């Protein structure tokens, strides 16, 4: 029986820039930051209230699994904003929207009421996008 998610990936184009975005703008905590040779590192972060979930800020660089052609295609798709990386929750979407905007985060959708609840959409520094929703959207009483 699977019990929980522990590690998941976010493919990023530049790890230094991703560190700044996820740590200094989103307020995530660094879990691991281990050099793995020139130009790359094992970099994982966690949402502030979820220390047991690590997001790997995974660099899209040429490696055993990623030949140059894949790196080029993946980089292009990330920059185009093709990849949604999930839902991040907060107490209040409107306030979080204001805070992240003040920090320079680019929103592709301002907070708006949808049939499933209030939602905003923003991009990370690479081009991946996230849905931002109030935690109340996921309360049992809302049927999700």
């Amino acid at each position, binding site marked *: 029986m699977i019990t929980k998610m522990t590690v998941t990936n976010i493919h990023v184009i530049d790890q230094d820039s991703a560190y700044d975005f996820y740590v200094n703008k989103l307020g995530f905590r660094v879990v*691991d930051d281990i050099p*793995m040779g020139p130009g790359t590192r*094992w970099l994982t972060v966690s949402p502030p209230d979820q220390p047991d979930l690590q997001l*790997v800020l995974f660099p899209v660089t040429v*490696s055993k699994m990623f030949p140059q052609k894949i790196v080029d295609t993946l980089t292009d798709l990330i920059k185009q904003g093709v990849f949604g990386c999930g839902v991040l929750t907060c107490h*209040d979407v409107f306030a979080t929207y204001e805070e992240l905007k003040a920090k320079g985060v680019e929103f592709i959708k301002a907070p708006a009421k949808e049939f499933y609840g209030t939602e905003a959409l923003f991009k990370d520094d690479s081009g991946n996008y996230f849905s931002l929703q109030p935690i109340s959207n996921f309360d049992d009483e809302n049927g999700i």
Partner: protein
Amino acid sequence: MIATAYHQKVYLYRRVVQAKLFIDSNYSEKIDLDGIAGEAYFSKFHFIRLFKSIYGKTPHHYLKHLRIAQAKVLLAQNLSITETCFAVGFESLSSFSTLFTTIVGQSPSAYSKRHQQTKQRISKNPHAYVPGCYAYQHGWFENSNFEEVGD
């Protein structure tokens, strides 16, 4: 409707957000939370209530947790306990140690020691701290024998 509600609230939100960002930037200094509330609102209690509804903590509670979170970062970087205490805005070593222990579950010295030991182990064998599947995917194993362990 939601746009109207949002525009009605946006002014209040921006004030609370600015207060929170002020705390984020100035946690290492002595912060007068009552003063922040006074500048932002007529009612201190209204400010606290709104702050808590947005961030899930009162400003005072938020500031305490922010300081301890930053202390963890500094201790992990091997700053001394005294340096860390004052760097994150505490004026008393004992109050810092007590609060740190309450929130983190271990004393600052125990936390620091554990982190330095972990850092030493990581520097000696970094691959042991990366899931093997990732290290393999990136070719981080110097002498990987994964290919030889097929079915």
